[in-house]
């Protein structure tokens, strides 16, 4: 088990490394760079330019040097000092801007994830046990709609409904009065009252997807002989379901941990922008539009690494819950 985890970790290292190269190339793609443009703008407006400052940046990031040197400087800073560089747009180190926001995005993703699981697993079990019932058709239909509706379109529609019919202006993470206040219990409650909407919006698509997976694997398992054997032991129907088919059908769901995170980050970006949340999505968007390259690069690297980590965790979880994987047996898989 330990060697499995270590091997899996080692495989992640080159992957993260490649992600960083890719991220660097991507943020270099747009023609021109922020610093030059920024200086031009300052010059035009007649503001005085601190030449020493400019030179310091140029030197620090090797902006006058070839790409691969720039990359090396950048990645070295990240690896050795955990510093992602300087945001020209925000006039602050990237780390300062990023940490809290990625954290919030992660919290939203994680909460959506919890909602997803706690809805999808029982519903998936129920509709599999009652195959072809009214509930089954209902949730299948709902699942299709949920799959076809991306979060940001749903967010648009909800915003419209909430505003015109309930006069509520949804969006943001805090009410205006709490925006600048230090953390307090009231602020936390306020946060929760804003958070549920993006969490729910994100969870809907994922839930639809998970119900489908759970239903399909449950139906597969319910057909197996061991379910009947368990009934013949005299176990109650509930115990039979829980200890036998569910215990197995839930395993592939665990492995969704990895891709759901990817999914939430991905879909979450646009939802966050629509709902005007002060999280990773809008900042990444802005930094991409403004060519704030270190900022954008940092986001891509962090998100890529987190998702790689997510799939690592789900692989390990799978090995823990499924002895067939642990012992390398392919039977019935």
């Amino acid at each position, binding site marked *: 088990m330990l060697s499995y985890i270590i091997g899996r970790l080692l495989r992640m290292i080159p992957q993260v490394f490649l992600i960083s190269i890719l991220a660097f190339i*991507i943020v270099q793609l747009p023609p021109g760079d922020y610093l030059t443009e920024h200086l031009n703008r300052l010059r035009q407006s007649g503001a005085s330019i601190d030449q020493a400052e400019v030179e310091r940046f140029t030197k620090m990031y090797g902006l006058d040097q070839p790409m691969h040197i720039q990359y090396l400087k950048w990645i070295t800073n990240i690896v050795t000092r955990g510093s992602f560089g300087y945001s020209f747009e925000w006039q602050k180190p990237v780390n300062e801007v990023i940490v809290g926001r990625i954290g919030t995005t992660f919290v939203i993703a994680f909460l959506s994830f919890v909602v997803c699981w706690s809805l999808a697993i029982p519903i998936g079990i129920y509709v599999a046990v009652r195959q072809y019932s009214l509930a089954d058709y209902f949730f299948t239909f709902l699942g299709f709609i949920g799959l076809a509706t991306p979060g940001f379109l749903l967010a*648009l529609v909800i*915003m*419209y409904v909430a505003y015109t019919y309930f006069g509520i202006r949804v969006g943001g993470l805090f009410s205006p009065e709490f925006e600048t206040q230090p953390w307090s219990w009231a602020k936390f409650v306020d946060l929760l009252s804003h958070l549920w909407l993006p969490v729910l919006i994100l969870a809907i698509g994922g839930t639809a997807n998970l119900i489908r997976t759970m239903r399909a694997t449950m139906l597969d398992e319910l057909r197996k002989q061991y379910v009947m054997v368990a009934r013949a032991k005299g176990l109650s129907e509930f115990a039979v379901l829980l200890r036998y088919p569910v215990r197995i059908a839930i395993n592939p769901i665990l492995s969704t941990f990895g891709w759901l995170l990817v999914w939430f980050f991905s879909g979450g970006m*646009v939802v966050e922008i629509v709902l005007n949340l002060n999280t990773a999505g809008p900042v*990444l*968007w802005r930094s*991409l539009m403004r060519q704030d390259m270190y900022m954008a690069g940092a986001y891509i690297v962090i998100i890529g690494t987190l998702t790689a980590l997510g799939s690592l965790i789900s692989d390990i979880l799978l090995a823990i819950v499924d002895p067939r994987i642990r012992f390398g047996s392919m039977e019935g898989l």
Partner: protein
Amino acid sequence: MSGFLSIFKGKQQEPGAEVQAPSAQTKDERFYRAGQWQLVWWKFRRHRLANFAMIVLGILYFIAAFAEFVSPYDPLHRFKDFSAKPPSVIYIRDTEGRLRLPFVYGAIRARDPVTMRPVYKEDTTRIYPIKLFVRGDEYKFWGLFPSDLHLFGTGDPQMPLFILGSDHLGRDVLSRIFYGARISLTVGLIGVFLSFILGLVLGGLAGYFGGLVDEAVMRIIDVLVSLPAIPLWMALAAALPQDWPQLRTYFYVTIILSILGWTSLARVVRGKMLSLREEDYVMSAKLDGESEWQIIARYMLPGFTSYIIVSLTMAIPGMILGETALSFLGIGLHPPTISWGVMLQDAQNVQTIAQLPWLLTPVVFVITAVLMFNFLGDGLRDAADPYVT
């Protein structure tokens, strides 16, 4: 006990126990083989939802193909007197209670004294019947054939027909949706086509050469699947200069969308190629002097066309949504290009949505298209799966 067993040996065959003759299996088999695609088609026809989806998609693509003719107006035509007009109400009964063919009333425009927004009132004295095959805005069908014939409309510039309302600039939303279908519905097709080529080539190379090439392709795939689609698309799309011509931007957007789509196909192709090397019949084909590509075309593709078709169908909706999201964020296509995502750019903030909710109607079309592709893909998968009856 063993005494009983010895009984069997002494028993003679009785007349009633005849050995059954082998049935005419060979004939059945030939029939089955000849009809394999036929069979898939039959099974598909039985899938009602998928058939329905196919019809709806057929209609949508028909609209996209004949947008100039089907839409009542030029999508860029600004009706200055009718900006931000809500959808027209279509009546079949006039004020005197008489039944008529469908018509709309004229509209009187006023301004809200407080907000200064246009407000429209129906003028029941003027009646504009909805006609078929009316003359209107001129266009060049597919950029080639000039005409001014439209499928329907009022045929009267005094009172245009706004089935889904008009936007801030007085452009007809329905016409824009029809023209937008052209972009939004083809982005997926072309993107899928590009993914298909990429997947086949890269997967084929990896499987064919093996070794270092294989390793490189597989690592790239690992990285690509670990990156969330939308941020990656955003980053790539942000690199497209704003001043590029429409067609070029469109083409690059489809490339960006297909960048993530090829990975799963490439994996399968690679696996097939690797296992193919081991197969006996490939070896014997080689000995018979057939070229690699002949072998691939003859033995490999047929076995998995159905898989390719299904996975491509399933990939289309993601691309449609991707285009919508990117254009919506203003980093994909830009005006004057018309796509459903570009149209939704106008609906980004709450005030606009609250005042002009009909600007959200492209959402309905996006969801319908995606839903139908999902249904279609489901039906195709079930039909192509030999184990599901």
